[in-house]
């Protein structure tokens, strides 16, 4: 590697004045005595000045509109799909589970030691059998069924909430100049 090559490696640093004084002085002396390196240095100075002044390009007028469309499409793709069919399946399942729960809690499967309702059981005229001691009252059962039903509905509500929380108000994405 010739000394000229070594100098060339340092020309940018020399040009930007980031060399230590000793190295800077050596480069300076070399440039004074070497026309080829001096020319290269002059070219580098010219080049960096030209690069700083190249014409800037500007985004097209459609840029914002295109970006807005892409964002809207992106949001649509991310939205969870809650179809009527999915909803009906969910509700059917909830009703079936509620019925099963109601059946077991009123039949002989009810553990005898459950004493949820301290008040005397209410007689149900439509029921052929008299209520057993310790059985859960109809009102309580109804509230339990509601509770269970709410539990079953919960995932759907969470989805809806999540949807709301991430649903971007597209009117707010103005993307200036539109």
């Amino acid at each position, binding site marked *: 590697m010739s000394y000229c090559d070594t100098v060339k490696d340092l020309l940018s*640093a020399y040009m930007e004045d980031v060399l230590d004084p000793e190295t800077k002085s050596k480069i300076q002396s070399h440039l004074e005595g070497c026309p080829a390196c001096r020319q290269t240095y002059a070219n*580098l100075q010219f080049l960096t000045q030209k690069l700083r002044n190249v014409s800037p390009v500007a985004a097209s007028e459609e840029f914002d509109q295109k970006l807005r469309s892409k964002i809207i499409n992106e949001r649509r793709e991310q939205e969870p799909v809650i179809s009527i069919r999915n909803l009906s399946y969910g509700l059917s399942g909830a009703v079936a589970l509620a019925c099963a729960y109601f059946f077991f809690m009123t039949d002989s499967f009810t553990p005898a030691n459950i004493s949820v309702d301290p008040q005397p059981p209410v007689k149900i005229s439509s029921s052929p059998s008299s209520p057993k001691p310790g059985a859960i009252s109809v009102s309580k059962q109804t509230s339990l069924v509601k509770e269970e039903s709410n539990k079953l509905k919960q995932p759907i509500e969470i989805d809806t909430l999540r949807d709301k929380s991430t649903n*971007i108000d597209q009117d707010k994405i103005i993307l200036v100049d539109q």
Partner: protein
Amino acid sequence: MIKTETGVKQGIEATDEVLIARFQQGDNYAFDLLVKRYKDPLLNFVYRFLGEKNDAEDIVQETFLRLFKNKHYYKEIAKFSTWIYTIAGNLAKTELRKRKRHSLFSISHYMSTEKDYEIPDESGSPERDANSVITDKIIQKAINKLSPKFKQVIVLRDIQGFSYEEITGIADIPLGTVKSRVNRARLKLQEDLKHLMNDV
């Protein structure tokens, strides 16, 4: 000067980091401001990288789309500009690789035809003369010949004006490598543009 809604009232310019924080908290207006602030600088960076404006616009749009989708990935350990330029630079490099794979890198890149380059829009600077336009085209042609690793650093340093330290963050390479690549890229360019310099 770009200001946030509150900032406009207070006459304070919000920093990039303030804007991205607000956007992360759900303020989409902050996103608008970031787009407005960065679309042209990013476009110039990617355009100089790819040498084609339409492709550059697509890349910049994809960059903003990724910002929109992945806003929570930004952590304030790095400057926002470093982060967004890294995304754009990576996408531009991927685009270059894709072009190479699909043999879209035509022989015309090595020939002196004007079809290779899109002429920059000069409507905003009527005072520019024809010589400057030609010079720009010749410079872009020389940049196109550089390999991506040299192209990236020279565009960031000499056209975009980033510091060596900032380029280190964007290109994810050591400081010494950045300095060395910038110097080598300049030497390659000056070698290629000797005739231009002798003419002027």
